[in-house]
């Protein structure tokens, strides 16, 4: 194969992402929920029917459930809606949930199909979304941007993302060492019904089982006995008959006989007496029955147990005990908590599924309550027989779902789950910030705990999680980002896989006692953590399963892993595992051949074909351990089984913007990942049609000169955020120290860094319970050129009372001249209403600069009958103090704006847009930035984009050659002349184009000063913060300086006279505070004197008095 075709294999990545999109994981999981999971929930035995305790004949049975296409019902008309309409009108993008039911009405069986039980929020881009499979033109007609990632919800006009949640995997045994140095094997069981945690623990030389429902630890032998294992020998066989197991178990068995528990009944009674919150007395069951019930349903609830057949549980417990003993003897057997193979990612589909099931259960229990209430009363023979449909509350499911998604609080009663911050508002600061949010992984780990383990980069995360993109500070390492090609699996049915495994020669575990499981040379086979059986020829099983997978007969996301040292084979088909694609290598040859790539470029083949034909396969984190993966073609050796598609895919989409990241110091890339999300740019093709609260845009955004493959894959080249600035790396004037940059005034006047701030202000006319509503009022007529401010603020209004489009407004100007009725409660006759019954409540414009009103939206939705949205656009050229940053974590503020003629220039007429101080380089070591400059400069003269893709990209040598060919210095340095004197600058200046981002932090939004202004009501001290026009605090340290200097009067002036001075009346005789020359304590006004003190001091005295402490003032005259 030629070198060229090796390069071409990375064409697979665009093909991969074209097929999937970057947020495919969200959409896939929601599709699964809408098509499969929701049906399973409704058809599960505990949910599928509602019965009545009082009427044995009654039943309500759900036969089917469907989610339709999104629509809205207005004035009894149902019409379909588009996502953009929802954004504009503050609607929820949701679709009706329909069920087919069969129920008893009177004494007839009635079938109803297509009954709506609520509205399901629809994820944009999912199978029920109107945007699915639409062409660019069709999307444009729906006012949607073709490059929008989708995968979020729109709830009441707000875009909400359900973040990916990281969790320890469920239903798997994890062996750990606890704080007391005991070995602990724990498993978190999770089924649709129950969630519980079972722990097998060593304590000294004995082994116990621990569970939340049990008040104390139960010796493991007792548990075995309670589960029906009578003979000690059988217990040994279940765990292992080798010496180390017998030794370790000896003490535990002894305990059994000490407690004189020898039979199943004795053991059950023992466990029954340890159950917390025992309900035995209430239900009239014996302790033995209760204990058996707990063991069957609560302990290890994920292990199937029908009719008290405990065999599967016994085996499972045996495995747990064995693991504990193994770990006691060999600390290496302890599992790594942070290993990513033991982690599962929860996606929108699963989370909404949990929520929906909870709500559906509640919906049914509400119906049941209602039904029971009806049937418990004596039947009235008259009238219509009771119809259960009247008992259905459609709002419950709708509002439950909407509330959870819009607040992010996931509270599930049955799991006692109370999670906050599951959803976030989709950040539309820039295209990248939206994309970054869609690929973000949130960890359930507490932020406050100071352990480094979960935060640090784990080896098993390689290629799955971006090593650079994580925030700094408290959530560092806990919030992660998916790498470019990572795919998260969804649940697959287990039956097919287990059948296949059995037909491939797995011997069913239930046929054996313990002993056969552990005979040497035999591999134990697990499916999703559950013991399936044993197999004598591990390699045969694994190879055939993989072969079948490559043939496409089973899902490509099934993983088969051999764990040699444990003699185990793990098959996994559960959801939430991380996988990524690799090229399969057989006999040192890549299965992807040049002809395949050719077919790909011709469009004859897509990425799925590569997978289906067994040329490319997905491996999950665990299966990666069984593979020998070559990074590049030249690394392929005899053992190689797989080949990376392209090394740059280890980075995520945000880190992928950095050119030459492999030349940078690592933290710089992390800084850029944070800053890339703050860069102003183009948000989407529909940016001027959107009505976000604030939208920051860049007027003339440019596609970067030095690109990366990621940039093209994620369409950043079409929705860029920055400028190719001509940068001279030199010092100039001293206004460039500490990372400040010098800007060319002419450049900024020609459009460099010019940003648009689109702001929206809402105002709604409400309707009140007494029938009155807010009203719009004509503004007062403005006479003369210089009206008073109270009138002038109405200048921008139309006669209708709403601001005129195109007018310029300033802070304080009225946008909507609204009046609210004074009395919102009592009934008032409309005809008797006068102007006095209304008080003004206008909406005013807020913003630092005069701004033009661009658009007005007047809409209505079911909740608000009259919604007015005012959109203003402000144009902001860069100014002193605005923040800029290159793509290498090098931020700086504008320190000086210089006239063009003062800027240095070269003999060809070039002059920089920006001057950057060279001191930014040595300590930061951002070599990538230097290379970007050279590459960019050479690209300019060649007329081509240059590539700085990670671990690849154009070489500096080649770029230098191009520069020399075009008559420039090899290293990118130029001879410049000083703009002010005309003399030659005494050094060669490194100069050329660099991609610069303008960040959202702008001086105009931050600058603040005040002379006098508002005070807080309680303390009478000046308010705090810019938003409240607050004062600038003379803090403790400043005060200390003044004390040290001895400026007593100045302190008094600052801290009292200019703040909250108060003249208090103090009674000299009793020392109490008085009021208006009167001492209430002495009932006299004789000894009252006036004392100046801070109001806060007076307040303190009063608060002390309220606590029965009497501060006494002893006055003396100075």
């Amino acid at each position, binding site marked *: 194969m030629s070198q060229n075709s090796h390069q071409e294999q990375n064409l697979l990545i665009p093909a991969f992402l074209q097929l999937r999109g970057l947020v495919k994981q969200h959409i896939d999981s929601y599709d699964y929920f809408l098509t499969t999971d929701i049906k399973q929930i409704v058809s599960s035995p505990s949910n599928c029917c509602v019965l009545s305790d009082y009427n044995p004949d009654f039943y309500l049975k759900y036969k089917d459930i469907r989610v339709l296409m999104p629509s809205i019902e207005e004035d009894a008309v149902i019409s379909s809606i588009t996502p953009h309409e929802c954004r504009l009108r503050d609607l929820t993008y949701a679709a009706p949930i329909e069920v087919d039911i069969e129920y008893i009405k009177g004494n007839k069986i009635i079938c109803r199909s297509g009954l709506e039980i609520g509205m399901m929020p629809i994820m944009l881009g999912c199978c029920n979304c109107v945007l699915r499979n639409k062409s660019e033109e069709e999307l444009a007609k729906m006012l949607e941007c073709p490059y929008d990632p989708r995968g979020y919800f729109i709830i009441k006009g707000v875009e909400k993302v359900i973040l990916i949640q990281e969790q320890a995997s469920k239903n798997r045994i994890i062996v750990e060492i606890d704080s007391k140095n005991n070995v602990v094997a724990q498993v978190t069981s999770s089924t649709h019904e129950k969630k519980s945690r079972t722990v097998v623990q060593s304590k000294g030389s004995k082994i116990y089982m621990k569970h939340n429902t049990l008040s104390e630890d139960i010796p493991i032998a007792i548990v075995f006995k309670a589960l029906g294992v009578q003979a000690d020998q059988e217990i040994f066989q279940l765990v292992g008959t080798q010496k180390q197991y017998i030794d370790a178990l000896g003490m535990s068995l002894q305990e059994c006989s000490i407690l004189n528990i020898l039979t199943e009944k004795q053991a059950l009674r023992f466990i029954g007496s340890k159950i917390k919150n025992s309900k035995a007395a209430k239900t009239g069951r014996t302790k033995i029955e209760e204990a058996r019930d707990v063991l069957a349903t609560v302990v290890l609830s994920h292990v199937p147990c029908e009719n008290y057949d405990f065999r599967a549980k016994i085996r499972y417990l045996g495995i747990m005990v064995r693991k504990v003993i193994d770990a006691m003897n060999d600390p290496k057997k302890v599992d790594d908590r942070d290993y990513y193979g033991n982690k599962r990612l929860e996606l929108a589909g699963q989370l909404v599924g949990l929520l929906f099931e909870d709500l559906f259960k509640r919906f049914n229990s509400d119906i049941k309550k209602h039904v029971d209430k009806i049937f418990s009363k004596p039947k009235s023979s008259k009238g219509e027989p009771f119809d259960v449909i009247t008992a259905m509350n459609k709002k419950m499911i709708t509002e439950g779902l909407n509330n959870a998604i819009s607040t992010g609080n996931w509270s599930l009663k049955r799991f006692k789950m109370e999670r906050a911050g599951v959803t976030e508002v989709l950040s539309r600061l820039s295209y990248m910030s939206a994309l970054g949010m869609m690929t973000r992984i949130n960890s359930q780990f507490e932020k406050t705990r100071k352990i480094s383990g979960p935060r640090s980069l784990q080896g098993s995360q390689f290629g799955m999680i971006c090593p650079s993109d994580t925030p700094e500070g408290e959530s560092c390492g806990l919030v992660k980002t998916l790498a470019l090609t990572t795919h998260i699996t969804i649940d697959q049915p287990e039956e097919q896989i287990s059948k296949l495994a059995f037909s491939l020669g797995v011997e069913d575990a239930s046929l054996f006692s313990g002993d056969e499981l552990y005979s040497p040379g035999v591999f134990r086979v697990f499916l999703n953590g559950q013991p399936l059986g044993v197999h004598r020829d591990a390699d045969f099983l694994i190879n055939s399963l993989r072969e079948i997978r490559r043939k496409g007969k089973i899902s490509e996301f099934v993983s088969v892993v051999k764990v040699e040292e444990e003699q185990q084979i793990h098959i996994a088909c559960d959801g939430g595992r991380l996988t990524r694609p690799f090229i399969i290598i057989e006999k040192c040859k890549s299965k992807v051949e040049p002809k395949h790539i050719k077919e790909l470029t011709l469009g004859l083949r897509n990425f799925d074909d590569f997978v289906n034909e067994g040329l490319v396969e997905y491996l999950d984190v665990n299966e990666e351990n069984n593979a020998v993966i070559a990074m590049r073609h030249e690394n392929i050796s005899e053992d190689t089984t797989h080949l990376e598609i392209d090394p740059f895919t280890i980075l995520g989409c945000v880190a992928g913007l950095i050119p030459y990241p492999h030349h940078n110091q690592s933290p710089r890339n992390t800084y850029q990942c944070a800053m890339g999300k703050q860069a102003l740019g183009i948000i989407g093709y529909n940016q001027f049609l959107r009505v976000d609260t604030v939208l920051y845009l860049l007027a003339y955004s440019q596609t970067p000169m030095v690109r990366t493959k990621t940039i093209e894959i994620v369409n950043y080249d079409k929705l860029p955020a920055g400028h190719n600035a001509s940068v001279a790396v030199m010092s100039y004037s001293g206004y460039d120290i500490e990372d400040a940059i010098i800007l060319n005034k002419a450049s900024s*006047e020609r459009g460099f860094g010019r940003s648009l701030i689109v702001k929206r202000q809402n105002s709604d006319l409400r309707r009140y319970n007494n029938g009155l509503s807010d009203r719009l009022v004509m503004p007062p007529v403005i006479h003369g050129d210089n009206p008073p401010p109270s009138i002038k603020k109405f200048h921008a209004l139309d006669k209708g009372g709403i601001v005129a489009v195109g007018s310029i407004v300033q802070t304080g100007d009225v946008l909507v001249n609204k009046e609210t009725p004074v009395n919102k409660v009592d009934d008032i006759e409309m005809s008797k209403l006068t102007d006095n019954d209304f008080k003004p409540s206008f909406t005013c414009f807020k913003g630092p600069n005069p701004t033009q009103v661009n658009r007005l939206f007047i809409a209505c939705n079911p909740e608000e009958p009259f919604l007015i949205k005012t959109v203003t656009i402000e144009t902001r050229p860069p100014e002193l103090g605005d923040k800029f940053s290159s793509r290498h974590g090098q931020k700086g503020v504008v320190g000086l704006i210089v006239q063009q003629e003062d800027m240095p220039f070269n003999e060809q007429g070039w002059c920089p847009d920006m001057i950057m101080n060279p001191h930014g380089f040595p300590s930061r070591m951002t070599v990538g930035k230097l290379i970007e400059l050279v590459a960019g400069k050479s690209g300019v003269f060649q007329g081509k984009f240059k590539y700085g893709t990670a671990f690849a990209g154009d070489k500096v040598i080649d770029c230098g050659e191009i520069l020399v060919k075009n008559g420039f210095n090899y290293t990118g340095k130029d001879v410049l002349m000083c703009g002010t004197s005309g003399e030659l600058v005494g050094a060669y200046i490194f100069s050329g184009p660099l991609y610069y981002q303008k960040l959202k932090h702008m001086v105009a939004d931050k600058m603040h000063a005040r002379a006098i202004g508002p005070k807080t009501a309680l303390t009478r001290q000046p308010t705090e913060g810019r938003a409240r026009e607050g004062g600038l605090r003379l803090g403790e340290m400043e005060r200390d300086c003044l004390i040290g200097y001895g400026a007593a009067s100045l302190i008094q002036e600052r801290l009292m006279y200019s703040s909250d001075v108060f003249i208090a009346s103090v009674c000299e005789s009793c020392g109490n505070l008085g009021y208006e020359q009167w001492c209430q304590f002495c009932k006299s006004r004789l000894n009252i004197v006036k004392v100046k003190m801070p109001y806060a001091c007076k307040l303190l005295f009063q608060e002390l008095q309220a606590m029965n402490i009497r501060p006494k003032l002893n006055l003396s005259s100075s």
Partner: protein
Amino acid sequence: MSEVYRGRAPNIEINKITREKIKFTLSGVDSSVANSLRRVMIAEVPTMAIDVVHIHTNTSSLHDEFIAHRLGLIPLISENQDNYDFPRDCKCTGHCEHCAVQFRLKVKNQEGGVLDVTSRDLRHLSQQGNDVRPADSDGPILILKLRKNQEIDITCNARKGIGKEHAKWSPVATAVFKYTPDIYLNQQRLESQFTAEERKEIVNSCPVGVYKLNEESNIEVVKLNKCMFCEECMRKGEMIITRSASALLNVHDNVVRVSQLKDRFIFKVESSGALKPESIVSKAFTILTKKLDDIKQLIPPLINTR
């Protein structure tokens, strides 16, 4: 120093004039004079540019301020700018024919498709001021695009101003000078101490090809003006000396030396289209002398009379 005492005769030699570009050599002056000229050309030669925009209708996809900014940056032919006053000097309030030229941009797309609105759609509001018009001889300048039924109706005033105030009034795209290179070749040493191969190395070291080897394989300067003072040749020469045996001779004197003639400047002025390149230069001189004259006026009369 002696040169200064001798006194120099300043001289201008025009090398090339085209419609948009002028190249000339200014000699016999100091860099201060050359730089003053450059600075005046960039920042102080007045032109006309659209400055005040009234938007009557705008249903296009760009918002008002965006369009206003784009209109401002269109170069207007300002050869007759002398006929207009600076708005601040004009006696009128608002605008009048002495200080402003009014344009109207009224376009509506009625046909469908995408309609380009360009500088050619700018119409004069009155007969007066027809000499001030968009400089679009190289093709129309795109202002915005209209979809079907989108409409734009704008009146705008072009006013006189200078580049110092806003870059849109700057008449030049580039206005630069360079120093004349002065290359000294120690031919004697080059011949005696350097091999032909090494001489070739020096020739090839120049990225712009200033040197050539002649028939006797001696170095010859052929394109002097191309030199951009990168000193690659000097570095190469030094390198060869240090690595060869001649280093032992302890001769530090370089065989190639590139320096600048400090009183000879090659100017290159590219016009934005607002003014002819030659008039930019001549106007710059006028303005420069006027500035000096203005300062001269400030000299107290006592000295003036002496």
